């Protein structure tokens, strides 16, 4: 897959003022954001996220997120799942420390040597998870293609109310109205990359149909028990999209 799936990873760190491990989480996140993977990551400000920050929530819905928590309360992971979607991966500092047999970090305000070592190790693991989330080294082209689709003045269905500029399509799936994001973006990508797939006939080969649906699933949560119904609805929508494009 090309630019469509080249995207950035949102890093959500707990605020963790009460514990040294919370400070480790914060500093590890900043190390990855500023030093290790600056072009591939975006910071999600947890307090703003909790308070309803539209841009942060929309980004976290559209892009993979990785959370870094200080302790088992897992505030960042729980908040991300509650207000956006399940994180692609999660780290908990006290688990990282325990697995590596490091000394317990001390000093919530000024970390001791053990704390600084925990920052280094947590940041390395976080960077590796970023690489994994981006598919072994594929990194973002620099801007969301969802934005480009919206800005070209093309026909837009309702855009997400969070103000992110991402196109939202409402489909009837198993008798319910379901909002799926970024469908035109996915469809356009497949028409450009595999013109034969959306060519003269709306029938797709199995592989292409699977690829389209997998791409849609990157941007949308699909309940396992309704996967077949979602797939059918998405491919039907794709057929309609191809017909419109031909005109």
């Amino acid at each position: 897959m090309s630019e469509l799936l080249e995207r950035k990873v949102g890093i959500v760190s707990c605020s963790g003022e009460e514990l040294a491990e919370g400070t480790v989480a914060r500093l590890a996140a900043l190390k990855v954001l500023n030093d290790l993977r600056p072009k591939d990551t975006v910071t999600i400000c947890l307090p703003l996220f909790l308070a309803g920050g539209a841009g942060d929530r929309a980004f976290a819905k559209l892009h993979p997120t990785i959370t870094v928590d200080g302790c088992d309360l897992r505030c960042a992971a729980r908040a991300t799942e509650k207000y956006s979607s399940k994180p692609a991966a999660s780290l908990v500092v006290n688990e990282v420390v325990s697995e590596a047999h490091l000394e317990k970090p001390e000093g919530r305000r000024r970390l001791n040597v053990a704390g600084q070592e925990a920052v280094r190790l947590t940041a390395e693991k976080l960077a590796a998870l970023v690489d994994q989330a981006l598919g072994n080294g594929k990194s973002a082209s620099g801007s969301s293609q969802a934005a480009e689709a919206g800005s070209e003045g093309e026909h837009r269905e309702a855009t997400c109310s969070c103000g992110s500029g991402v196109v939202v399509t409402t489909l009837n799936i198993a008798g319910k109205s379901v909002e799926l994001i970024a469908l035109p973006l996915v469809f356009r990508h497949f028409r450009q990359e595999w013109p034969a797939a959306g060519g003269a006939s709306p029938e797709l080969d199995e592989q292409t149909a699977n690829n389209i649906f997998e791409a849609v699933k990157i941007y949308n949560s699909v309940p396992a028990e309704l996967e077949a119904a979602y797939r059918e609805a998405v491919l039907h929508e794709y057929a309609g999209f191809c017909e419109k494009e031909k005109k």
Partner: protein
Amino acid sequence: MPEYLETTADKFTFRVATDRRYTPQGIWVLEEPGTQRVRVGLADYIQQHNGDVAFANVKPVGTKLAVGEQFAEIETIKAMVELASPVSGAIVEVNPALDTTPEVINQTPFQEGWLAVVETTSWEADRSKLLDASAYFKVMQAQVQEELKNL
């Protein structure tokens, strides 16, 4: 309420109000119908790019301006930004909110965050040099892309 053109980069959405004109540097100019007056302010991308406004100083009422002459400066946590007048004329009103709550520039750059009202002296000539919303939108998008490349 104006309509907006929008573009999103990462988690940031940048808006351009379609009912006004712009300088390439991101000052918006809104005509006050039936008068020679225009209201001016800072476009969304510029206020986001520069960060939280700590101080905003606009030259006082009565100040005569030529196009390109500094009419205001804003100080944010990141920078001191001098703003060039998009029109020639005289300042007739300065936003009183800027003294106590300059963050209004960040919160509502196209409405309550306006900077000044100018009585223009050559509006037709000045207007023709300003970009319409669509043209400024393209300029802004290019600025956004440039910023992302420099990360």
